[in-house]
Structure formats: structure tokens, C-alpha cells
């Protein structure tokens, strides 16, 4: 008899079930208010790590949110949620990236122009001449055009402000390699922006 069964059920089991449900609802609400406010930051990082591939960036953000939600019980409220989420996103990206980086990329052996464009610029204020005329989109396109092994250190260092040691740990490469990749990546960026600025007639 149904009514009998209901009565037989221990009272605390019923209460327990309700508590569980509301705990779950509370967890979800808490997660939404604490974590989802950082969607822009996550998407921004994902966009640069994936070189502007919006579909891949969205997948990366979704994976990150899912992992974060599953680990939400481990997150200490009041600590830096944004930093925690960014770390999950970075690690997710790097793990995926490593799978495709088994063999050294051809770019390592490519002849790279390592000179600073400074030498080629004539004028009272070369920096003002070159950089102040470039718009955000042009700079972002130049960053996206870098090969992965150069772009990732630039994103982590210049856009995220991480130290060489942190980048070394994340990418699992020696600090010396971080240094040399940053050096070459930045010189490439300069070259690219310089060439672009000339083509656009920003500089002569």
C-alpha cells in the first residue's frame, strides 16, 4: 500500500533528500555568481591561446566551466576565483596542445630574424611612430599569427603577466627555453607590426 510505504520511510531519509537537493541548488547558484562572472576573462584567454579560433575557444571555456563545477567543492570561497578558473583553462589547453606537439615543430629550425626593428626606425620617437598608430586589432592579429610555441609564451607572459618560472612549469619546458622563445616571439611580433605599419603607410 503506497500510503503505508510512505509512512514507513524514515523521516530523516526524506529530509536528507531535500537537503541534498537544496544543497545542489545552492551550489549551482553559488557557482553561477562566483564563477560565471569571469566568462569574459576565460573567453579572452581562450581566444588568444587558440589564435582566435572562436569555436575552439568556446569549447575550451565549456570544458573549463565543467571541470570547475565538478571541482567546486575544493574551491575555497574568498580566494581568487578568476585565477583558479584561468589556471584550469590554461592546463586544459596545454594538455591538449602537448598531444599535438610530440615532434619538434619545423619552426625551431627556421631562420628567424632576431634583430630589433628599432635600428630601422628613424625619427625622434620611434616607439610613438610605430606603436601608437597601430590599433588593437592589428596587434591581436599579429599575436594570433605566431606559431603555437611562440604564441603561448607571449600570451602567458605579456597578456597574463606570468613569470618565466610559471610559464616553464605550465609548458613543461626549461626556463632558458621560455626566455629564448619569448625573445624570438617578440622580435617576430615587432617585425610583423613594422612591416604592417609600413604597408599601411603609418611609417615610411
Amino acid at each position, binding site marked *: 500500500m503506497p500510503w503505508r510505504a510512505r509512512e514507513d520511510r524514515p523521516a530523516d531519509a526524506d529530509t536528507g533528500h531535500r537537503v541534498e537537493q537544496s544543497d545542489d541548488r545552492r551550489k549551482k547558484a553559488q557557482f553561477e555568481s562566483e564563477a560565471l562572472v569571469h566568462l569574459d576573462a576565460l573567453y579572452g584567454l581562450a581566444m588568444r591561446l587558440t589564435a582566435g579560433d572562436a569555436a575552439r575557444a568556446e569549447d575550451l571555456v565549456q570544458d573549463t566551466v565543467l571541470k570547475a563545477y565538478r571541482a567546486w567543492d575544493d574551491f575555497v570561497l574568498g580566494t581568487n576565483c578568476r585565477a583558479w578558473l584561468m589556471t584550469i583553462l590554461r592546463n586544459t589547453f596545454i594538455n591538449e596542445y602537448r598531444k599535438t606537439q610530440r615532434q619538434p615543430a619545423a619552426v625551431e629550425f627556421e631562420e628567424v630574424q632576431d634583430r630589433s626593428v628599432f635600428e630601422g626606425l628613424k625619427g625622434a620617437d620611434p616607439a610613438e611612430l610605430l606603436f601608437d598608430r597601430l590599433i588593437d586589432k592589428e596587434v591581436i592579429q599579429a599575436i594570433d599569427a605566431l606559431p603555437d610555441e611562440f604564441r603561448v609564451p607571449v600570451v602567458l607572459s605579456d*597578456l597574463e603577466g606570468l613569470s618565466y618560472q610559471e610559464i616553464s612549469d605550465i609548458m613543461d619546458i626549461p626556463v632558458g627555453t621560455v626566455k629564448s622563445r619569448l625573445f624570438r616571439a617578440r622580435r617576430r611580433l615587432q617585425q610583423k607590426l613594422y612591416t604592417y605599419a609600413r604597408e599601411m603607410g603609418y611609417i615610411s
Partner: protein
Amino acid sequence: MNTKKREMISCQDAVEKVYEYLDGELEVDWNDKVREHIEVCKRCYPYFDFERNFLDHIRSKGLRAEHSEELERKVRDMLRELG
């Protein structure tokens, strides 16, 4: 006060360390050497200034990107399905 004049590093040594210096990654000793060099070297100072400007410019682009409403919807749907 230490009045002993430190031996000046060469332009080449300074230039090689430009990004480590600007990134704040040099150890105190080297950091001082580079700083002392560019303070007085009229060839290196504008160069360091140029590189600093370049990095500031890249950094100011930051990670600005607006997520789409569709992404937000996808994320919220995903959370809802997790039940």
C-alpha cells in the same frame, strides 16, 4: 655608502638582457648592472625605451574579448543538465 665604482657592462651585454630586464626577471646584481648601464648610455637608453614601449603596447591589449550570448547560454544549459 659604497663609493667603489662598479665596472660598466658592455652595450652588448645590456642589450642581450633587455627582455629579462624589462620583465623583472634579472637577479638583483644583473638588474643593477643593466640599470646603471642604460642610465648613462645614450645609445642603449632609447633602445630600452623603445622595447619597453613595445611591451607596454602588447600588454595593454590584454585579454579583452567579449563572450557571446550563445556561449553564455550553452554554459548555463550545460550546468542545468548536470542536475
